[in-house]
């Protein structure tokens, strides 16, 4: 019997049964699949159980008692998707968030996300959730008008799996500015997004520390395929993806820390304020605000402030202000 058919039959058997189904009965129902008394049949059944759990179907073993025989069952309350019992605005949030993430075309666990949106239409009457998921899955499967999925979509999918199963990955990675890619083995810890681009945070076997990798610079990757259900590593206990991801470029450790001040003219949008990160100190000033932050990579702060145009200005330190002037003067000369 084909594996997908066996899994579905097994789920149907256990769902319908009124009481736990013994291993002997299961063997009788699937004589070709779980034949014999040896370890091999049990291992095969255990693998199937694990596959079902990955599909969201938990198969439980119940040790028998006076009333019930020992055996396997699927607890119906544990199987069916419950109603999420969320107010409509929260459901709308989930729906808007999920659809927007899928529409980006690059989101880790995109396939899972599409399935989740499909299911959401059952968990609650979220308007259009399944429509949206259907469109997204079409994009994923390369159907319709959308262009074929780029390499990065594949990397995201492979890495998503490797992270979930804690398997090491061999990367062929081209560092910024480097001509030739280098190879390295990493323990993938997580994926984060910054300014529209995705990064992998991973513990590098040769550097023996957590590094970040820009996904579009990954030339190729290979996930360890041996013993897919056995984790290869445990992430370091004190690792925090959110902390790593929310670190601003000017907080990368390059130079000694120095205090910098930036002036922003009104109107200042919340998004621009937020772009200076949670550690920025903001004070109101006539016609605008002044931001004060500790910086270890001043070049990055300079670039960020310049991108805000003539409504922003570096006040201090003087050296950085001079850099800004020099850079703009050179550009201005070139453009004249």
């Amino acid at each position, binding site marked *: 019997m*084909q594996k997908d058919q066996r899994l*579905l*039959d097994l789920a*149907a058997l256990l769902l319908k049964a009124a009481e736990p189904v013994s291993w002997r009965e299961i063997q009788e*129902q699937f004589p070709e699949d779980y034949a014999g008394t040896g370890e091999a049949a049990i291992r095969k059944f255990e693998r199937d159980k694990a596959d079902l*759990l990955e599909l*969201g179907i*938990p198969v439980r073993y119940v040790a028998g008692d006076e009333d019930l025989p020992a055996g396997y069952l699927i607890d119906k309350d*544990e*199987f*069916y998707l419950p109603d999420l019992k969320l*107010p409509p*605005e*929260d459901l709308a949030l*989930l729906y808007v968030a999920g659809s927007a*993430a899928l*529409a980006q075309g690059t989101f*880790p666990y*995109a396939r*899972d*996300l599409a*399935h989740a949106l*499909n299911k959401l239409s*059952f968990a609650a009457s979220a308007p259009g959730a399944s*429509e*949206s998921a*259907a*469109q997204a*899955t079409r994009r*994923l*499967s*390369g*159907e319709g008008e959308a262009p*074929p999925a780029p390499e990065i979509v*594949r990397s995201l999918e492979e890495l998503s799996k490797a992270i*979930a199963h804690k398997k090491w990955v061999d990367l062929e990675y081209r560092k*910024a500015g480097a001509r030739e890619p280098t190879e390295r083995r990493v323990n993938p*810890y*997580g994926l984060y*997004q910054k300014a*529209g*681009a995705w990064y992998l945070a991973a513990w590098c076997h040769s550097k023996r520390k957590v590094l970040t990798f820009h996904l579009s*610079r990954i030339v190729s990757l290979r996930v360890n395929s041996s013993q897919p259900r056995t984790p290869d590593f445990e992430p370091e206990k004190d690792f925090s*993806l*959110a902390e790593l*991801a*929310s670190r601003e470029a000017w907080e990368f450790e390059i130079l000694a820390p120095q205090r910098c001040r930036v002036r922003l003219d009104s109107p200042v*949008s919340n*998004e621009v304020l937020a772009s200076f990160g*949670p550690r920025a100190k903001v004070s109101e000033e006539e016609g605008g605000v002044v931001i004060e932050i500790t910086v270890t990579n001043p*070049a990055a702060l300079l670039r960020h402030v*310049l*991108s805000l*145009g*003539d409504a922003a*200005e570096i006040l201090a330190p003087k050296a950085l202000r001079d850099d800004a*002037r020099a850079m*703009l003067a*050179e550009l*201005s000369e070139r453009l004249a």
Partner: protein
Amino acid sequence: VSPARRPPAERPQKPAPAPAARPPPAAPRADPRDRLRRILFLVPYAVRHPGTAVKELARRCGCTEKELLEDLDFLLNVGSPPFGPDDFLDVYVEGDRVHVALHQSFSRPPRFTESEAAALAAAAQALGGEGRARAVKALRDSVPRDRRASFDELSGRIYAGAPAAPDSVMGRLQRAIAERRAVRLAYHSASRDAETDRVVHPYTLAQRFGHWYLYGHDRQRERPLAFRVDRIRECAPLAERFEAPDEAELGRMRLFSEARGEPVRLRIAAGATAWALARPGIRLVKRGEDASAVVEVDAGEEWATRFALSLGGQAEVLSPPAARRHFAERVRKTLTRYGRS
């Protein structure tokens, strides 16, 4: 044992034509679990919506009609042991309509897997909003009990961006979208370099080139437009309600491109090419002999100017002429702030 089953009556003789120009599948053969996941949605959906057209059902399942018909064929062979006559799923296609009758086993889809719930939670976390914590908890509760620890762990492994501040523009927009309520925006129009007052029916949010956009119908201009969220200074909900367009339309909107007209070209100096090309939406046009690069992007001149300046002197806008002038003007104005030395 040959259980009695209704034959697949009037199954269309020819399966839906396979798309001829489809690129060869680069991925290895699909995991059998993919089919099962699809079926666990397809069956309850078809039960709930009897007589759905094959085409429509395929669209909802995100597969081709051919794949869907294969799935239905597959379902005909699925039963519940001990395989009595009544234990099979009863699937038939009448005309081009799908009917599924069955014992109650698959009337609802299974719970969220930890990766489904974690992916949705990560998307919700990034978008922010007040209901975020509630939504994430509800997702967690919808994962089988044995897998909740994995959900917790996996949620910590995806970070899709910092959430919006509680009372931010983003938070209010989400609420307005959910409540289908019009909003009054104080919006900085880049093309006129002035703040404008707009009344908008907010339809949806989308992320492009690393920025959030609101897509909605502008009442005065009488057409749907995209608004950069970071240029919205104020957002006030109004009492006025509206009807949202259908989901297919919303889906297209989320794929909008802000650009009108020709793409903007920029020259990037050698030191910044790798960084620039890593940004979404940036295409390489040609490389210079000095390892510099000319790149192209479908964006407005304002976006291009900011992007070029964010590369700190290592980039300039080349064309079209209006975009180059816009860039030069911004450089000049910014320089005057620092005073010429």
